[in-house]
Structures are given as C-alpha cells and as structure tokens.
C-alpha cells in the first residue's frame, strides 16, 4: 500500500488565494489511469485541470462547488483501493467563500500610477491582477506581492499545508493567520532541509556601553547597533555567511545588507539596513529608528523588506539566556542576541547557519572574531561608567555630586545593592 499522488490546491495567480472545485469526474475508490483528468479548479480567469500522474485508486477530500485554500490537499491516489477509508468524511475543511478584495461591484478601467506601473514591470506582474480596482498605487502592488511570497522570483517549498492530524481528544482549532503562514514559508526554505546547526558564544559586556552610549542617541544600552556595525564589517571576511543555498550551487551576495528582525505588535518583519558595512554606528542607529518608525506607522515599502543578505535577531530585551534563531529564506545564517546578564556582565550570541553551505568551525571562527571586536569597546576606565552611578535616595548622579567625597555602596531597606551619596547617608 502506498500513497502515489497528492493533489493540493495550486496557486495559479496571486489574486486567487482559494479556488473553487468545479469538477470531480470520479468517485472516491474508483480506479484512475495516467493522464485522466481527476479534478478541475476554477480560477478568477480560467479553469485548471489536474491529471493523474500514475494509475491508482482515487480519494477525493473535497466536494464539487466548494472553495479550498491554496495548498490544501484535495485529492489522493493510492496504489491499493483498500487504503482508502471511505467512511472518513472529507477531512479537509472547506473555507467560506472569500469576499472579493473590493466589495463593491465595479467594472471600470483601472488607473495605475506611474510608480505602480514601474513596479509591475520590474516584477513581471500582469495588470490583470488588479481587475476590479479603481486605482492601483505602488502600495497596492506591494501589498499583493508581500501577501504572497510566490510572486517573488524564487521558489519556496510548499510546507504549510499538511494532512490535518487526527486525535480522539477534544481540541479547539485556531486558524493560522496568513502572516504566520508567510513566516512559516520563509523559515521553511532553509530549515526544511533539516541541515542547520547553531553555535553559541558569550561576549564580556562589562563597561561596554561606557563609550558606546556617548555615540548613541536613543538606543542607549542596546548592543544591536554595535552588532550590526561589527558583523557587517566582519562578514566581508566570511562571504559564506552572507549567501544562500541555491539548488546545487551556493550564491554569495556581493552586498552586505543585514536585516534585523522586529516584532512589536505588527507581525514579525525583517527590516533591511542596507549596506550597513559602509555606515557608521550613528547611521545604523538612525536607520534602526527610522525603519522601526516606519514599521509602526505601516509605512514600510518593499525595499525595506527585501534583498536582505544576513539576519540579526535581537531578543535581548526579553530576558533570554540563549536561543536558537532560525535562518531566513535566501540567507545562510542568522545571528541571535540574548539578554545581557548584568551580574555576570555577559551576553550570549548565537548563530544558526545552513550546513549545506558551511560548517560549525567557520561559524565559531566568525563568532570568536566578533566577540573580540565587540569586547574591544569595553571601557578600560571604570570611572567613566561609574559617572552614571546614582544615589538611590535622592537620585543624584555621581557626576553631579559636588561634595567630592563619592558615594558609598550600601544595601537598601528592601535588601537591594545600591549606592548612596554622603548627604543622604549622613541623613540630611
């Protein structure tokens, strides 16, 4: 017994995220031969026939006239008719008919902005996609492109849809959002092969912000701008980490465009810090702030989301010790930043990489060099750091203390370690 062929709902146009089945010529359990039409889909423009690639026994997991989402399995062919459990009702949940993008009936001629036209041409997209639109701006084109990674000039594994798992326990099904599905698609590209590995290293962060905070305007005590800055420079020496696995070859990017992952309420996005290898830390900080602002204001454009050659994901604000980041599609590595342990003055950097392209030794070398570079920012002069020491009672800073006596280390009534100025210590 064997499953010979599985037919999923195909993506025929970016507009059609679900298709209607308009013909199922056989009934489940019947024998079919190679070349016979076994199911017909209707798209917004035409009908699409699927033929059997092998002789076998057919099982329909769909019914005529209903809509099914792209990638759902609707037909299976087995080698043996016994494999087909006809008592099982079609397990594929059919979806509700989706409302068209534009809810009003309209059939006028669509107007395209010149920006939209250019974008269509660049991406070899047909203007027919926008039938029923009144106006199509660049943003509209981008929305279509982003909502469907298939329109990009790369191929992705169809990893999202699998046979729904059966269980006798009571369960509640939550539908996976389209954004999450895109994320799964993106991450499946590399991870699906199962050949990734992660290397961790720690960086001594004691007094690392002494000078750094003077250079940063807003992202004080954040190591992210520095990591982007140093890793971008270091990547020139490690081209394989700025590359991607392309069928039988390894494609190495000439540009170094690190992206940083962000997820603050509007979905996980990776934003492109273009040519970070050429930017100063201040510029990188500005770039991060600018992109984050655009992310929050929903003003991201295609160029902010694409052409990322290497990814950095910063979970340092989340109290993490270490984690395993997942390599983004069309990347060969990803660098994760965990939280700085303020007691131990250290922070773990983790790099997951595509083993089809490189191996742990190279990545460990990269991390080691990165560690050295980062630690070189540590201030030798501890007094610089201590300038920010604050009296826990009057909140006066050491540098503002005119008494010229210094602060004492103390234990607060709550039991915390803190500093106290002489005035407060003496009680006036």
């Amino acid at each position, binding site marked *: 017994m064997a499953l010979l062929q599985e037919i999923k709902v195909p993506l025929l146009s970016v507009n059609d995220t679900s298709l209607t089945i308009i013909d199922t010529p056989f009934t489940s359990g019947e024998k079919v031969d190679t070349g016979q039409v076994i199911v017909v889909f209707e798209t917004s423009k035409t009908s699409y026939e699927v033929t059997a690639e092998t002789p076998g026994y057919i099982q329909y997991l769909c019914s005529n006239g209903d809509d099914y989402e792209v990638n759902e399995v609707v037909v299976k062919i087995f080698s043996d008719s016994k494999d087909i459990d006809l008592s099982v009702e079609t397990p594929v949940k059919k979806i509700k008919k989706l409302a068209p993008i534009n809810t009003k009936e309209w059939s006028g001629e669509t*107007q395209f902005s*010149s*920006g939209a036209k250019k974008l269509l041409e660049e991406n070899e997209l047909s203007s027919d996609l926008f039938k029923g639109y009144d106006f199509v701006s660049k943003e509209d084109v981008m929305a279509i492109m982003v909502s469907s990674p298939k329109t990009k000039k790369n191929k992705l594994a169809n990893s999202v849809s699998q046979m729904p798992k059966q269980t006798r326990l009571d369960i509640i099904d939550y539908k996976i959002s389209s954004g999450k599905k895109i994320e799964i698609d993106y991450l499946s590209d590399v991870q699906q092969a199962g050949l990734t590995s992660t290397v961790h290293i720690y960086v001594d962060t004691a007094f690392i912000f002494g000078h750094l905070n003077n250079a940063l305007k807003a992202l004080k005590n954040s190591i992210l701008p520095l990591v982007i800055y140093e890793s971008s420079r270091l990547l020139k020496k490690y081209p394989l980490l700025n590359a991607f696995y392309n069928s039988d070859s390894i494609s190495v990017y000439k540009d170094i465009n690190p992206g940083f992952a962000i997820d603050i309420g509007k979905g996980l996005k990776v934003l492109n810090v273009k040519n970070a290898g050429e930017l100063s830390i201040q510029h990188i900080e500005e770039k991060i702030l600018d992109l984050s602002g655009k992310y929050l204001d929903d003003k991201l454009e295609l160029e902010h989301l694409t052409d990322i050659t290497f990814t950095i994901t910063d979970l340092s604000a989340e109290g993490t010790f270490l984690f395993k980041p997942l390599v983004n599609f069309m990347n060969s590595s990803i660098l994760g930043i965990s939280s700085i342990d303020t007691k131990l003055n250290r922070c773990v950097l983790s790099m997951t990489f595509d083993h089809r392209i490189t191996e742990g030794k190279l990545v460990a070398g990269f991390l080691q060099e990165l560690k050295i570079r980062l630690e070189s920012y540590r201030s030798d002069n501890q007094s610089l750091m201590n300038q920010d020491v604050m009296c826990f009672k009057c909140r006066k800073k050491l540098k503002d203390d005119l008494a010229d006596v210094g602060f004492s280390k103390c234990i607060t009534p709550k039991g915390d370690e803190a500093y106290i100025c002489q005035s407060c210590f003496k009680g006036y």
Partner: protein
Amino acid sequence: MTNNPIHHRHIKTALTIRLVEEKFLQLFSEGKLNGTVHTCVGQEFSALAFAGQLKKKDFVFSNHRCHGHYIAFTDDVRGLLAELLGKETGTCGGIGSSQHLCNNNFFSNGIQGGIVPVAAGYALGNKLKKNGAIGLVYIGDGTLGEGALYETMNIISKWEIPLLIVCENNFYAQSTAQQVNLAGDIESRAAAFGINTYKGYTSSPEELLSKAEEVISYVRDECKPAFFLVETYRLNPHSKGDDDRDPAEIEKFRNNDYLEIFQKTNPVYYNQYQTEITNEIDVLLSDIFNDSDLALDKYYSPKVPVENADWMALDPIGKRQVELLNTFFKDKMVADELTVFIGEDILSPYGGAFKVAKDLSFIAPERTFSTPISESAIMGISNGLALNGFKPFAEIMFGDFITLAFDQIVNHASKFYHMFNKKVSCPVVVRTPMGGRRGYGPTHSQTLDKFLIGIDNVKTVALNTFFDPAVLYHSISSEIHPVIVIENKIDYGKKILNHQSPNYYYERTDDLYPVVRVRPILSKPTLTIVSYGGMADLINTILNDIFVETDLKPELIIPSLISEMPVHLIADSLEESGKLLFVEEGSASGGIGAELAAQVAEYTDFKYVFRRIAALPVPVPSVKSLENLVIPDKNRIIQEIKYYFT
C-alpha cells in the same frame, strides 16, 4: 441774533437736549458712563429744524454727534439715557451707546462719510416703495473730507433720490480748525452735482426752522435731493478733553447762543423749564440705574453647526455657469419685487463686464441700477436698500475693487444687526469675480478672498463649477445677514461638471451651502485636497495626473461656504488619508488655508500632515508665463504634492 420769538415747545426741546447732554458729561466725570460722549451743546436747533420737523415715516441717519438729532426725532429721552448708561433698556441695549443708535427710522453710526450712501440707499428704497417718505442725513464739516460723500451726491442727484443732506458746519473737525483742511467752498461742492443748496444758522433758530420746513417740502414734493449747510458752533469740546480753541472765541459764541440769551431775557421761563426737565431726567435716571445690563446670551450665542450627512450625486448641466447665473437673476427679478440689482456698467445690451446682468434692465428697469464708478456708494446704497427691506444684489465689477467697498461691508453691513441690538438686519448680497489666468495683470486678477472670510456676521460663499450656482443663490436669497459671493472669471464660461475624472464619484451634500466631494469610487483616499472656486475646477481636471505622478489617491473636497469650512467632513476624509492639502489662488500668508489648518487642528485628535499650495506673494503678473508660475498651475501643484507628501 434775531429777537423773533420762537415757540416755547422748540425751546423746551432744545433745552432738553442740552440738559441731557450736560447730564452725560456729569455722569462721565463721575465715572458712570462707559466710553465717550460727543455733545452738540450749541447746535441743538439744527436737530430741531430738520429731524424735529420730519414725519414719522421719514428717516434720519446721523453721526457720532447724534443725541440732539435722536431726541428731536424720537423724543425718546429714556432710551437714550439708558443706552449711554449701558442698560438693556437702552435704545440699543447698551451695545451701541452714544454713537450707534437705532429707533423707529433713526440710525446713527460712528463712521462719517459712510452713512451718506447708506442713507441714499434707504431713501432710494422709499422712492421705489412710492411711500412719500424722505430721508435726512446729518454730516459735519469734517465729513467733507471723505469721498463716499461725493460718490453719493453724484448718484442722488442723477437718480433723483429724496435725501436731504444737512451739513452742520461747526468749523472744527475734532480739534482741527476748518481753514487747515478745507479748500474752496462748501455749498458749491453740492451745487456742482446739480443739487439745490441752502444755508442757515443755529443762532437764528426761527429762520432756520422755516427754511428747513421749506427744504423738507421741496425734497418730498419734488422727489429730489437737497443740501443744507447749517452754520453753528459747539460750545463744548469735540468729545470731552480735546479742546484747544481760544476761550475768547468760545465765549463770543456762547454769548450769541439762543438758549443763553433766552436764559438772560426770560429767566423765569428758563428756570421753570430747566427745573422741570432736570427733575424729569433725574427721575428717569434713578429708575434706569436699577435696570440690568444685557446678558451675553441675548447678545451672542454660538450657533450649533448643522451637519448634514446626506449626499447626492452630481450630474453635468450642459450650460455655462454665467448662463445659469443670468437665468437665476432674471427669474428672481421677475418673481420678487424687492430684488434690486446694482452695479457698474450693467445696463443691457451690455449687461455687465461678465454678462451676468444680461437683459435685467429690460426685464426690471426700475430695479436695475447701473452706477458710476463708485464702489463705496454701490455698497452703501445696497446696505441702505437692505435696511429698508429690499434684497439688493450688488455687483463689484472686479474682485480687486472690493477694497473700495470694504468700509461699507465691515463697518456698516456687518455691524448693523448686532450694534442696533437686533432691531434691524442687513440682508445685502455683494457679488464679485475674483481670480487670474486671464492676463489682466496686478489689479484685475487678484484673489482677495482671505480678506473677506473673517468678517463677523458676514457669510462668504464661493461658487464652483460642480453644480448649478442657483442652488447657492437660492440659499443666499433667504439670508437675513450680509453675504459676499466670490465668483470666478474663468468659471463663468465653463459648463457645469463638464469634466469628470474617471473612477471618481461626484457628489454633494444636501445643505444650504453644499459641500462637493470627489472621491475614488472604491479606494480609500491617501490624500485629502481641499480647494474651492476656480482652483477647485483646475484640481478636478488634474486628479488623475496627481494620482499617476504622485502615487497618491486624492479625494477632493470643495466647500462653497468658505467662511465656515466643513471641518467635520474634511476631518473624516483626513482620518483615512492622513494627508491634507489646501490649494488656494490667493497668497498663503494669513490665508484661507491658514484658517482651515487652525480649525482642523482644533477639531481633530489624530496625527496628519498639512500643506498649502498658494499664489506667490507678489502681484499677479500679466505676462502669461509668469502668471502661470505665480498662480499655482497643474505642474506646480503636482510638483509640490510630490515634494511635500511623497
């Protein structure tokens, strides 16, 4: 000084005027009067001779020195006392005080020459009503310096308007002696316009009274204007402390004053009258002091804006805007006998510079007035007609010239209703074509709308090419307050909704002053454009270019009542688009876009971007290439949208 006895009734009235004014001065020095007082002590018989001898149906327009005229015409001492004491029971509720009185056909205003055309318009109304009533306007010798007087004298003579101008010559304009500023002769100024002129003296009251009676009859019977010069002298300062005259001069005139002489020659009567009148005044005052001041809500209460959410689709009309305007006015002139059309060069067959008035003078010749080049008089006469119950439509040939009528709009039309405590209203309409793109150059191409939107109690309406202007004019016709209508030279020749950009929905609200909205059929707008009048017409034709070039999906909102912007509708659109653009044909500084920005900011609580596109701050040049740069054209608008918003 004549020794002819005059009726004691007149002496008592004159003495009442004097004693009331002397009481005012006393109250002022006691700090009980707010503001100022201009007394006519010494000039009382001028009031008696003219205002005192009119019929009730006649009317009086007076100036800042009006107490005597008021008492002589209305006999309302209590109303005057209460008015100056700022009481609700005052003739104008204490709003107007000394210089701004209104009661039973008596009007006064603190603007000098400006009252003359208003009086002429009121008198013209009486002539049209054929009610046998005449008008009287008091001016002083100081008023001879103002041009509105001469514009009006020309017209009242030409049109034979029954108005008597009484010039009270007290030889001082405030503190300046007459010889410093007055050239030539006074009487011959009126005579030059073919107006019968007369002269009399307050020092000879009996002669003055009889001459006045004679002139009043002349004006009434002949239905012609007259000019009466009264030589007089005020024994008190212009106002209160502003007197640098030679005390010997004043003393000389005081000795020649009729009431002073009467006091000496008839002390028994004088003292009796004085006691009676003084007692009467004191009794009135003790009563008035108990009266309350006018409450603010009786004077002003903010209007609750009417928000009409009903939208109706717009359809093209195969007619030019000017044809529709002309049709409206032809119908209106026929249907409503109180409608008057007035302006320069409007007689048919010419029918006005832009032909809006075509054939009106054939249809209603008695109510179509083609005027000399006298914008101030056009506006003033219209104000007077409006006060007298007519619906005047004044045409200012070019919007640029509206500045010449500005005093009449701001200091008269706008104020009458409130300053006369809502006893009268002034439903005047002034129409004028604004805008450039015709190469008429600096003084015939301006857009001065920004000076016209902030006048209290005056609506400013701008026509557009999106729907029949008659809709607006029907609403305007039923207004009881002044309306300025901005028309557009270029729009006159355009057909209504002749251009419709594809993929837009054209609609308007069902309001008295509809707001037009041009919105994408399906898409959410990503740019809200507000514009009006001729500029809105241009924007409409380039909507698609804006989209193609800038990638922004514009929604165009076109208010017609530009003095009260539809902020809620604009905010609704802005909430979707986040970007607001105002395009105006005038220059930006202190402009209509500035006002809109303030109002939208006050109304909204979300973030958005606001920009203006406006004319450059220089006179509109005649040369086409430069005119197209100074007034925003298609290219500049698209460029600036790109620059500001993308």
